[in-house]
């Protein structure tokens, strides 16, 4: 890790206080993101995967300060964001933008495409003139594959894939360095999904963008990510370079996830029928002691109950599992 990281996240916590059951409820703590640390290098794509409730959406919102962090630090090019006041945060938003999961829900139904794409410029580049702004909207629309003639249309007149292009244009129009993509293709049809993934890859190559690509689908992440971080119940299980992760996952949870991905080949799919894990996700309000994954883990032993495994380096990969050395050997 010679080059300096674009984004450094250290021991990030996002905890919510929720009301417990009963007449005189006690406050319970929901640890949506718990002691998460990772780096994002300039120009790379970091994939973030995990099941629903693993905190991946909360994490992406906390990085952008849409949800306040309760502990830890997030540094963008060395600038600490968690303690930054709102006014000082604004100029930094030019370098960090977000693409949302549900393309239609993330577009204001009463605004035209042109107004939607121009909005970040109005907020972040107030000095820019109207003509220049319009030109930039049109240029960005072209880059993401929208027709200039569509500038006065409304979101509901677009299909999901086209609407997601509008969302991508809105994120890119202020020329950010880092784009956080929160499941940008999960809601799209198969044939459209691949178009959008290719578009994201092209845009990255053209503009030297850095992505944090959040998804629940390991097959999609393999296509776009350079490194992959696996989350489970708000904790990091494994961070590894793509090829190493898919060739030989070290964490038993990564192995479980990989074995459950359906394969579009009937012969292979039927041969590879795995015994699925019985136990379901524990409640995030009552995490198991020690390792969060131990209730579903085939390798769990007394040490996993007693001691929470820390994220540590093995052969240049980062794994939080007591049995990782055995798997690496």
């Amino acid at each position, binding site marked *: 890790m010679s080059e300096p990281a674009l984004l450094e996240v250290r021991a990030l916590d996002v905890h919510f206080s929720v009301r417990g059951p009963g007449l005189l409820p006690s406050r319970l703590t929901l640890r949506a993101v718990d002691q998460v640390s990772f780096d994002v290098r300039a120009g790379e794509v970091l994939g973030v995967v995990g099941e629903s409730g693993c905190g991946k959406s909360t994490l992406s919102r906390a990085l952008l300060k849409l949800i306040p962090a309760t502990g830890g630090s997030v540094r963008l090019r060395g600038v600490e964001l968690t303690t930054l006041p709102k006014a000082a945060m604004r100029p930094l938003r030019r370098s960090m933008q977000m693409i949302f999961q549900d393309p239609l829900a993330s577009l*204001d139904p*009463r605004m035209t495409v042109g107004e939607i794409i121009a*909005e970040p410029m109005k907020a972040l580049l107030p000095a820019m003139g109207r003509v220049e702004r319009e030109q930039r909207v049109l240029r960005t629309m072209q880059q993401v594959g929208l027709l*200039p003639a569509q500038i*006065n249309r*409304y979101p*509901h*007149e677009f299909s999901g894939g086209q609407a997601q292009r509008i969302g991508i244009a*809105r994120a890119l129009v202020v020329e950010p360095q880092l784009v956080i993509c929160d499941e940008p293709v999960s809601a799209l049809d198969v044939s459209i999904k691949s178009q959008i993934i290719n578009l994201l890859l092209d845009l990255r190559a053209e503009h030297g963008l850095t992505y944090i690509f959040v998804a629940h689908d390991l097959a999609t992440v393999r296509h776009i990510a350079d490194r992959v971080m696996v989350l489970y119940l708000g904790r990091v299980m494994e961070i590894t370079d793509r090829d190493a992760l898919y060739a030989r996952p070290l964490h038993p949870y990564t192995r479980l996830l990989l074995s459950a991905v359906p394969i579009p080949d009937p012969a292979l799919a039927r041969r590879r029928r795995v015994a699925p894990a019985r136990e379901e996700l524990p409640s995030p309000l009552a995490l198991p002691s020690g390792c969060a994954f131990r209730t579903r883990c085939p390798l769990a032993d007394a040490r996993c109950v007693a001691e929470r495994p820390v994220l540590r380096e093995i052969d240049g990969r980062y794994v939080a599992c007591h049995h990782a050395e055995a798997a690496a050997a």
Partner: protein
Amino acid sequence: MNGDARHTWANWVPGRGAARKAEALAAGAVQGRSLWQDAWGRLRCNRAALASLWVLGVITLAAIVVPWVWPYGYAQPDWNLMYAAPTWAGWHIFGTDALGRDLFVRVMWGCRISLMVGVVATLVTLVIGVTWGAVAGFAGGWVDSLMMRIVDILYSLPFIPFVIVLMVLFGRDLFLIFVAIGAVSWLDIARIVRGQTLSLRKREFVEAALASGVGNAAIVRRHIVPNLIGIVVVYVTLTIPSVILFEAFLSFLGLGVQAPLTSLGGLVSDGAAVLQSHPYMLIIPASFLAVIVYCFNFIGDGLRDALDPKDR
């Protein structure tokens, strides 16, 4: 409704759509169909609502024009012609009342007053209710709790005695009637607007705007308010008839507009007293009241269906 060009009601005018589209096409850009235009298209397909719109338009126009051009004034008695049944003679087409005043012009005046009460009181309701609700909903936290508890307390006040006490204390001033009715009926809309604002705040497009660096004030102006308009418009068209009915009720009790001026409720009250001998004095104003209230309700229902996004 708001200053932004795309929400002006001019966009609703049917015939203009085609002309604008042609213009836009000539300029190379395709004009989109906004949700408002969609809603207007659906409303036009709703016959009951469209017919109501026409009827209401005719009544409103008549209520404005007739008192100017009619040969009789609303307080002009004709001692020779009391309780005359509807007749073409002397243009007393609705007949005359106990003092020989022309009932047609009085009914038109009644429509004028009732519609005015309905619209102005609803505007008062709207201003207080929308502001209160939007502030509570957007501020959230303890501000929200405090503001909504105040609404709860006001809800528990007995509504009718409150208005009656106001009337008795301050006299029967037309303006005061508007304000009194408006001041007590803003509670519902405050609650509705607050609920809507709360849910809008959690919508993904608001989150997207926050992530783009848009400030709070701009979010309220550009995203929250335009998306509130739909529900508020529906609520308004359903509030006007209930306010008109409430005014009629006050007038019936004798707490309405000061005589000799009158409202539809006052005319109904007069007519009810002589129902046995002169039924037209009740039937005519009561029909107008019913038709106006009906029309507003149809329009409100039509608007609700037209604006309902689930339909698409």
